């Protein structure tokens, strides 16, 4: 049992991942912050399959794949509907009303994993998991269009062991649109002014000093760090074809097993790497 996460050694550990297939409605109806080229569904699916394949095949996680729901065009972005930390899962109340129903399927799957489930029932609260950055020591919650103070409070009440600090997010959809954890003590951060400002805020709020990995592209700063027993530090990051400069930065991480993953299609609808999965670390009970 990893009390309080068992420290940094346990950060990034996971046994399960929850993902969800993408619905066809995504192409036309998914929410997007900027209009742009249409999503190539076939390509998007290929990319997503590759993504899931890495988790399941390469990393050996137990991947629980939820079926797509055509009435929920954004349902592939499972990250936003649940925040799981240790054995507790907070089912969120997504900021976009059209996404609220996405929670239901997630709830079922998390229940099946015997997690302590906390639901956000307060109608004044909104929280997207994309705004929640867990560093292993504390939470940062972006206050964005999708996440409000009340939502952050509920998160704080749910994960009482940890400090929960709020970070204003103005120019992007989510806090994790420009940052993520790239290692136990390492924050990957984009170079934009907004990203840097947010990083400063986080640094000020924290009792802890994090290392930072600055990448030229904000979108590339969203990567997935996992600590897989047989593989060590694993980092899923955006492919060099997409963000060559940022990829070079990641390639300097010598201790990490680097896995480039393309995400060109979902990015059109504000999807990033972390958006498509929820990781769970079930201690091997039984």
């Amino acid at each position, binding site marked *: 049992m990893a009390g309080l996460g068992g420290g940094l050694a346990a950060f990034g550990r996971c046994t399960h991942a929850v993902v969800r297939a993408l619905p066809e409605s995504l192409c036309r109806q998914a929410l997007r912050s900027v209009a742009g080229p249409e999503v190539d569904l076939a390509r998007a699916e290929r990319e997503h399959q590759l993504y899931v394949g890495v988790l399941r095949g390469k990393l050996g996680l137990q991947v629980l794949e939820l079926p797509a729901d055509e009435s929920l065009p954004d349902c592939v972005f499972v990250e936003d509907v649940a925040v799981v930390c240790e054995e507790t899962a907070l089912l969120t109340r997504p900021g976009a009303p059209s996404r609220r129903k996405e929670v239901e399927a997630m709830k079922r799957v998390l229940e099946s994993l015997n997690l302590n489930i906390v639901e956000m029932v307060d109608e004044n609260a909104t929280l997207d998991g994309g705004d929640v950055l867990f560093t292993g020591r504390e939470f940062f919650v972006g206050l964005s269009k999708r996440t409000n103070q009340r939502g952050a*409070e509920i998160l*704080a009440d749910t994960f009482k062991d940890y400090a929960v600090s*709020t970070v204003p997010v103005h120019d992007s959809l989510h806090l994790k649109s420009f940052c993520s954890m790239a290692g136990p003590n390492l924050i990957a951060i984009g170079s934009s002014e907004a990203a840097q400002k947010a990083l400063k*805020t986080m640094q*000020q709020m924290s*009792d802890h000093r994090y290392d930072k990995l600055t990448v030229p592209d904000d979108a590339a700063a969203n990567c997935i760090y996992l600590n897989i027993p047989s593989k060590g530090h694993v980092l899923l990051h955006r492919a060099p074809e997409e963000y060559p400069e940022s990829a070079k930065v990641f390639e300097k991480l010598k201790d990490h097993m680097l896995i480039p993953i393309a995400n060109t299609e979902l990015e059109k609808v504000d999807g990033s790497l972390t958006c498509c999965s929820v990781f769970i670390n079930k201690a091997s009970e039984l």
Partner: protein
Amino acid sequence: MTTEVGSETEVKKDSEQLGPDKAKDKPEEASETPGDQKSRETSSGEAQDSSVPAPTNQSSPSSQKKEKSSPESKGISRFLPPWLKKQKSYTLAEPKDEPKKKATGEEQVVEESESQALEGVAQPRKSLEEATENRQNAKAGDREKHSISSAEIQPSKEDGKETEVEEVAEKKEEKQEEKRETKEVQTAEIKIDNIPQKSPKKIKTVQCKVMLLDGTEYSCDLEKRARGQVLFDKVCEHLNLLEKDYFGLLFYENSEQKNWLDSSKEIKRQIRSLPWIFTFNVKFYPPDPSQLTEDITRYFLCLQLRQDIVSGRLPCSFVTHALLGSYTLQAELGDHDPEEHSSDYISEFQFAPNQTQEMEEKVAELHKTHRGLTPAQADSQFLENAKRLSMYGVDLHHAKDSEGVDIMLGVCANGLLIYKDRLRINRFAWPKILKISYKRSNFYIKVRPAELEQFESTIGFKLPNHRAAKRLWKVCVEHHTFFRLLSPEQPPKAKFLTLGSKFRYSGRTQAQTRQASNLIDRPAPYFERTSSKRVSRSLDGAPMGISDQSLVRDFSATGGQAAGDKIIDLEAAGRAKLKEGGREEDESPLKTPQLEFTQDGKSLEEEIASILFSKERFGAGTSGPFAAASPGPAEGAAGEQTGAAAPGPQRHASRAEGPCTGVSDADKSSHETLDIVEEKKQAEFGIEETLVVDETNKGKMQVATDAGETCKVEHVSKKDSSSLPSDSSSSSSSSESEDEEVGEYHPHHRAIEEVIREEQEDEEDMKRKEHEENTQHVEAIPEGSKPVPVEHTQVTVEDLVHENTITVATEEKNLSEQIKQDVGEEKEEEQLKLNGDVSHVDIDVAPQLICCSEPPVVKTEMVTISDATQRTEISTKEIPIVQTETKTITYESSQLDGNAVGDTGVLVSAQTITSESISTTTTTHITKMVKGGVSETRIEKRIVITGDADIDHDEALAQAIKEAKEQHPDMSVTRVVVHKETELAEEDED
């Protein structure tokens, strides 16, 4: 010592009265031979044995005092702050050395015994002690009056004292009505030390109850006037706890408001009329408990954390509750035993505020997995997990931000955290904080400008009330000192503000306590772990804190002093106390230096110097066993003084290394650390020097104070027998009221640059803070040189440059009069000449007017935003609440100044002495530099007069200058700076 002070009879001149009185004493004392002293000692010793003579003697001084004081109290004295009154009583008493001694027999006697041990110590110290005692008495009396109306009848001896005290007390009360700030002078504080420990007379005792962490209660009898340290030491002894610096005693004003008992102050002055019930708690949560030396310390920390968890103060998740609970079980019950531990064995324990069956099952399940862990290991595991909780060690205070939104301020090892609901919305690490202050119910922090920002911002919070603001401020000061500094900071010597708390953390810092802990050499003490069971039972599930409260309430209901005051045979008590620890005896010596000073009738400065000195000592001895016991730096220092303290005249010589020599290895090691500190300070000081040149006068003092710690007393005392400003003597007496309205604290950082910044801001702060409408600063800088024999180190001192800076402020007219008195008749700046007589560098040049600048812009931007995230968005454009108009006029003697300031000599010592009286603050800053084989001493004096426009500032200035000249006849005045501030806008009154 100047004796020009005319009317001692006038009440307003209290502060000067001290001077003359002392002056009188001095010859008197000086003439006394060692034999005399002995005989005295004997006589007082007799007094100790048989209290018979004491009463008689006592009555005489007190009655005289009464005579004098009562008329006074009707006059102007009503307007005087309480400490002045005390001073008065001091003054009056002073001349009557002999009787006085008896009157104060209790302490005296003990003192005697110690002094006998140190045959050589000059008797002067006695008088000083008496003086302080006197003050002490006054305070004590005051307190008694307030809190113990049911005091029993006392022996006539006591009566006499009591009455005299009450006299003072009454005045004091009047004072408080005036809402004047009062402060405690350090000397007084130091004195307090002895009182409880050495009283060979009949003492009144009070029964104290202390709620311990394991839910048991410890009670003991304490002398009524005992300092907090005495009780704390007893409790720690009872607990067999050596690493005690992390702990403290709490008393509750009500269920919400807990206060830390200040070790260095008398208990009854702090708790007032509250019952003598305390709670032993962790005060500073060690960020890494594994660094504690002893298991028993960790055990108590565990107990505290269990309480914190059960009460909800330390929130944790279900899983963590279960995990921590399982370690608790392992520690207290050992391995899980299916036979012994039936299914509900867990229900007896309380692990969480809302304990569920599910949780208990989880706890039991986890308990099984800890098989094999020893209790100590289980505790360690408990702590390893608990320390990661985000609210571990965070002391929360309710507040509102500038917009009236409810927030919480959390003080912790790393700084100040701001929470809104459960969310952290901002954080200010200690290094980021330049200043912490409070005023009325407002609490302010001034933060360093962020990158790319130009201005510091001041962030204000509204606390529920004044006491809450002060409490928060104190906790901040203590946490900052404990966790950030190597050694405690010296309490400010009044600085330029007349108002404000002088509170400083006086215990050991974490660095010091760790060092001391390394020296703990005893087999791990045996102790039983049974608490959580007991706790849960006694609390019946209720949070610990709450139950404490109810206890308190019950107790008070039953009659506050339930235990009642007992009169105990003093002899026995006294002996017992002496036995209690060697440290007490160790402490006694520390009085030596101070006593000497006073007795000699040396100026205040010297007296203060001695204090500074002792401070230094304290640092050196921190790790020593008794140092630990001594509550305040000063006391500790004094304690070590024993060997080193030479009789008056020679004392300078032995100072430097003195403390270490006699002391244990422990002391030495700690001394090393201190050295580091000293060096650092000197460096700071150097910088400060450069600052002297420019306008940021006010800022300087702060730094100077720091530097002061470093400086060796020798310089001061030897330098000038002449003496310091008589008004400065006021500093020796003063009191602290628990109700100061404002306090400020500059977190003292190690980085030099930080210091500078801090200084520069002071000026701004001043303005903001001052209530007074009119402020005039007069800086007079006499400079002179005279050959000085240098006894200390290799430096040959040839000239001394004294620089005086005088800043004067008056709030009431009386004040200005006082200053005038000090200053003398001369009124014109031109008269500032050098009086330097002896030196080769004789500069007899009348100062020239060098500059007249106006206004030295000091508008501070005041930003009140508590949310970090917002802060970045908002630029600081607002002007401080209080606008002041300032004018600065500098008169300088052309030749000297550059020489004095610009030349880069080697700093030998620096020291700052501050004294204050009603509304004047005198800060004397003495620095000694060696430049090319020539030693130069600069004395910079600043007198701040605060008051109405009616004050004749010119006259005040003239007098200040004259006084400066008279006090340092051998020095010349090189610079006079008059700085006048006028408040333009009324400050918002609460």
